[in-house]
């Protein structure tokens, strides 16, 4: 019986104001079969430092967090 803990970003959502909602899943697997899991969420808002984010989140943020989007978010 082998237990392993697998942490992954399993959901990335971009909402209208440019914020990126990130869900991280922590799964416990027994012999490769998931027996338990939980979610943790955070949001990367336009203008926030995303250098420590998952690579996919970084790529999305680099694409959509333009100066215009950041300015519009901060002005809202």
């Amino acid at each position, binding site marked *: 019986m082998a237990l392993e803990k697998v942490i992954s970003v399993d959901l990335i959502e971009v909402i209208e*104001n440019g914020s990126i909602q990130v869900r991280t899943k922590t799964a416990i697997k027994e012999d490769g079969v998931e027996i338990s899991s939980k*979610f943790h969420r955070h949001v990367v808002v336009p203008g926030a430092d995303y250098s420590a984010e998952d690579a996919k989140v970084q790529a999305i943020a680099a694409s959509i967090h333009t100066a215009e989007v950041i300015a519009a*978010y901060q002005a809202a």
Partner: protein
Amino acid sequence: MADTKISALPASTTPLAGTEVLPIVQSGATKQVSVANLTAGRAISATQITLTAGNVIPANGYGVDFSATPGTGTSELFADYEEGTWTPTNIGGALVVVGTFSSSGTYTKIGKVVTVSGTLNGTTSVAITGGANVVCGGLPYSAAANTLCAGNAVNAAATSTASLYANSGVNVGSVTAMAATASIFFSITYLV
């Protein structure tokens, strides 16, 4: 194979795997269909469904449609439920931390409504200065624009409360001040 009544055949082993086949008549021709494909892609009508094990798993964007029930609204589709954790962040502002800051939080999202709870700690103390300032950030979902949703906080000794709110974005604000305490516990329900 000699003719045998269906009732005389041996009983199958359950649960079925889905790969078993049944004979059907389609457009006048006898064909076979697997158990798995018997209802695939078809609407199913029943008076009641009881699940003895397992869950109802709607595809993304689908859920439980209440449009046949009385009343109307902007949406009658219950398409999302989620529970999890979040981490309130100290971004300066109205939260005054003495010592090392730590925090934790949980959330429950039902449709467009999110209820969060959180705990803010300081190894020596935490306090809130009043005046509609930001207490913490890090909400698990970005709050909808042009909404202002209220919540409450209580200190560790349960002797003082403060009024909090979530505005558009991911920050929690406070309307009232709270004196230094070991921990601040709060809950807010807001819209996304």
